[in-house]
């Protein structure tokens, strides 16, 4: 898509950390789907007298995320209070980090090689959730505090993205990294990852560069919303400028929301209503000074990042960029792959093909994650070994995989019980070939008339006669040989 303007995009990503308990209390952090207000205590309800105690694991995960994004971890950080009133915020302030965040000055390298700079990543607590309803014409709002106090990491990028595709790539790769580092599952469908997109347009007018103030699109929770909302808002800014609208005189940014139903943004806060959060250091907590030992041990514990692993899969196993990318998106899937390769080091590519093809298709169809695969990586390796050694045909192998998928059975056992061992007795195959040739004189004539592709139509019937337990290449060869023999 070409536009008469350049896009400038920066993204704030809110990520729920994968801790067992909440940020400042012992309540369970896995709130999604729990009955309302069942995961609460005096702390996350903001009862009088309750005090926060920081969750060590959350701090470690936040530092880990920063390290995975090549950030520095300052020696002196602290928590601050961000003050505003809203019913889902029980204390009337959110404990967050203002001027001394846990991580600063990092970067994330996109597949294209472009680096998106990470300005900062800070730790805070999530709010509760509101549910609006109506009863006998009276509108009401209910508050659920299960999510209140869940640890959130806010990762702020510099405005380094210049297309919607790049923005989407950034958030997808960010998600891959955070999942690989076990920082967050970031299940978008459960609200565990939310994006605020800062978008502005830059263009040339009368020979000078014009860069009007941005819009911040709040709280996008899917890739689709991110794409559509950013595209809409950029186009709206351009149209507004061209029509001589408010953008021509506006000095500060505005905040907008995204309505997925109407597929348009709507104004939430204009620049005049910029909120003063009156940040000040949280007096209920002491300053947070991550020891260098802690930081270094977290750094040492960082797993290989998806982009590094992908590059290794390409160079070491000879996989295509595409296949490698699919495998590394999910750490558990890549682990499964490498375990299978370890069992059968001679055939990394066929293993990848089976995984990205048949296996992944079934996983998607049945919405199963790698932990739900009933057979072990060794079993997949055994299956590939059977195929590559010519003991079973590709067609049989698919049937074996189906059986493995459903029962978790061992491939060699399945081959034996189902009699799927490839027929290697060429005289048996030759008999089937002769029978098919006799039934298809036209195809034979076509082949002789110089249409080699006519032979292909005969392979299927032979395979069928043989119950699929033959190598199609052998059938092909025998067909050609028998036709040639019948002439001479």
């Amino acid at each position: 898509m070409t536009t008469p303007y350049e896009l400038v995009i920066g993204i704030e990503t809110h990520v729920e950390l994968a801790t067992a308990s909440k940020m400042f209390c012992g309540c369970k952090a896995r709130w999604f789907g729990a009955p309302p207000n069942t995961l609460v205590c005096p702390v996350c309800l903001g009862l009088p007298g309750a005090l926060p105690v920081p969750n060590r694991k959350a701090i470690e995960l936040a530092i880990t995320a920063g390290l995975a994004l090549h950030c520095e971890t300052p020696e002196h950080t602290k928590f601050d209070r961000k003050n505003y009133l809203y019913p889902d915020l029980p204390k009337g302030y959110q404990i967050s980090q203002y001027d001394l965040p846990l991580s600063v000055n990092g970067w994330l390298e996109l597949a294209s090689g472009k680096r998106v700079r990470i300005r900062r990543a800070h730790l805070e607590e999530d709010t509760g959730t509101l549910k609006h309803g109506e009863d006998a014409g009276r509108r009401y709002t209910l508050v659920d505090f299960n999510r209140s106090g869940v640890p959130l990491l806010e990762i702020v990028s510099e405005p380094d993205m210049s297309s919607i595709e790049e923005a989407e790539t950034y958030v997808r790769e960010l998600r891959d990294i955070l999942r690989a580092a076990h920082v967050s599952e970031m299940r978008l469908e459960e609200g565990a990852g939310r994006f605020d997109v800062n978008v502005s347009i830059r263009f040339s007018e009368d020979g000078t560069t014009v860069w009007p103030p941005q819009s911040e699109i709040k709280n996008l929770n899917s890739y689709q919303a991110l794409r559509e909302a950013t595209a809409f808002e950029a186009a709206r800014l351009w149209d507004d400028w061209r029509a001589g609208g408010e953008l021509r005189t506006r000095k500060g940014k505005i905040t907008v929301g995204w309505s997925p139903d109407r597929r348009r943004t709507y104004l939430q806060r204009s620049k005049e209503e910029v909120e003063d959060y009156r940040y000040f250091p949280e007096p209920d907590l002491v300053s947070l000074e991550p020891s260098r030992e802690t930081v270094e041990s977290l750094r040492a514990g960082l797993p290989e990042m998806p982009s590094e692993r992908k590059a290794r899969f390409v160079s070491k196993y000879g996989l295509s960029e595409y296949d490698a990318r699919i495998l590394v998106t999910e750490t558990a899937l890549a682990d499964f792959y490498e375990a299978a390769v370890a069992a059968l080091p001679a055939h990394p590519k066929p293993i990848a093909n089976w995984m990205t093809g048949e296996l992944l298709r079934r996983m998607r169809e049945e919405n199963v994650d790698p932990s739900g695969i009933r057979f072990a990586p060794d079993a997949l390796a055994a299956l590939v070994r059977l195929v590559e050694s010519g003991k079973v045909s590709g067609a049989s192998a698919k049937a074996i995989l189906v059986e493995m998928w459903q029962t978790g059975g061992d491939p060699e056992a399945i081959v034996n019980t189902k009699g799927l061992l490839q027929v290697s007795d060429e005289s048996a195959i030759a008999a089937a070939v002769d029978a098919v040739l006799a039934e298809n004189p036209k195809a034979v004539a076509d082949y002789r008339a110089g249409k080699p592709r006519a032979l292909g139509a005969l392979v299927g019937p032979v395979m069928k006669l043989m119950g699929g337990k033959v190598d199609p290449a052998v059938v092909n060869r025998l067909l050609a040989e028998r036709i040639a023999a019948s002439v001479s």
Partner: protein
Amino acid sequence: MSAFPRSIREAAAVLRRRETSALELAELAIARARADEHNARLHIAEDHARAQARSVDEWFAGRGPGGGSPPTLAGIPWACKDIIGTKGVVTTAGSRILEGYVPPYSATVVERLDATGAVMIGKTNLDEFAMGSSTENSAFGAVKNPWRADRVPGGSSGGSAVAVAAGEALFALGTDTGGSIRQPAALCGVVGMKPTYGRVPRWGVVAFASSLDQVGPFTNTVEDAAIVCETIFGKDERDATMVDLPGDQLRRELDKGVKGLRLGVPKEYFSVKGMERGVEKAVRDALGVLEREGATLVEVSLSLTDHGLAVYYIIQPAEASANLARYDGVRYGLRVDGPDLLETYRRTRGKGFGPEVKRRMILGTYALSAGYYDAYYVKAQKVRTLIKAEYDRVFETVDALVTPTSPTVAFALGAKVNDPLAMYLNDVFTLPVNIAGLPGISVPCGLSEGLPVGLQVIANSYQESSMFRVAAAYERATPHHLARPEQVAA
């Protein structure tokens, strides 16, 4: 028994000799609380107290939880400032906005006292959210000083001070953010002690100014204060601002005397405008007593004393403005519905908070606002660091400081209600101690115009032991702690 014991030690001895039961003692305390004419009580927890007393009597009879002999505080009736959360017992913080609020959990200090078998008789009146120095800012009416009914008891823990001074409880808990234990203790003629910041868990105590608040006891004697402190001191994992120190054996310090101790006398504490001559005389006499007991008095300078008030009235309202934001009518407490959310907030908070609370929230919000934050809050924090550093320097040369607790004796009810600055000035000797996070104790040191005067002993952080040493030596050397208001003595 008919006479109310004069100290925890005396009551504990009587209980051990089985001359009276915990239940009898509780009934006596309940009766005295019901007869209170000073408006010191917001709630008398009769059933709660009787239940606690009965189980203590079981304990004395050898059927206690886990056996063993009951601790000193078992069966001792006490009163709790109504800003300290008590499970199942109304906790209002002296505010309409929390009227009828029953916490689902107890403050750590209450849990600890419960575990010793102390018997909580009820909740005491206070300035709303502890904001005040006279207990006239309570939403439930002013408290009167038992020494003279037309005088204030001091504040904000006025009800707790009166409960002990008038012989309605053997000790009481208060909170001290800028002097709210020591100043009313001085004005009511009892012992009041504010621990080092981080010594006593704040968990379950309704927050006023988080970096300044600390819970402490009101008692009849210095020894009683040490007994209560030994129970409430010590790390609680639920308060992240605490320092992990072993609990002090404070009673061991009491008999050590002051011989060889160097006591600092900050000259700025005696040159404050508005200092009453009678107060100064009583305190000077007290210094003489300590010198006769063997202490060396050293004049020291705390040149930043004047700035304490300014620093305090930035930091304290700033923190309070955030701490009180949670009272929005959504989850608990008062709610006055309006046509929309903003109006519900306005009406709820407009009706729920009194004028002093509103004044401080406006002050605090202003101090934290964009464009003012650096000039007020940040600067105040810098001066706070300087004040702390000045105390640190002084404590390199002295073991404790001895000062007046308040520049005046109990003033007339209504005298300063409409003059907040004059009211704030009454805390000029106590609030720097909170700013620096130090421990301080006020002990009775005689009368001026027939009203009690308090001597304040300040020690370095976590040096409560030397503070208790000085206070106990002074108490042994004088009869002032025995003085009681006439109606109580009668």
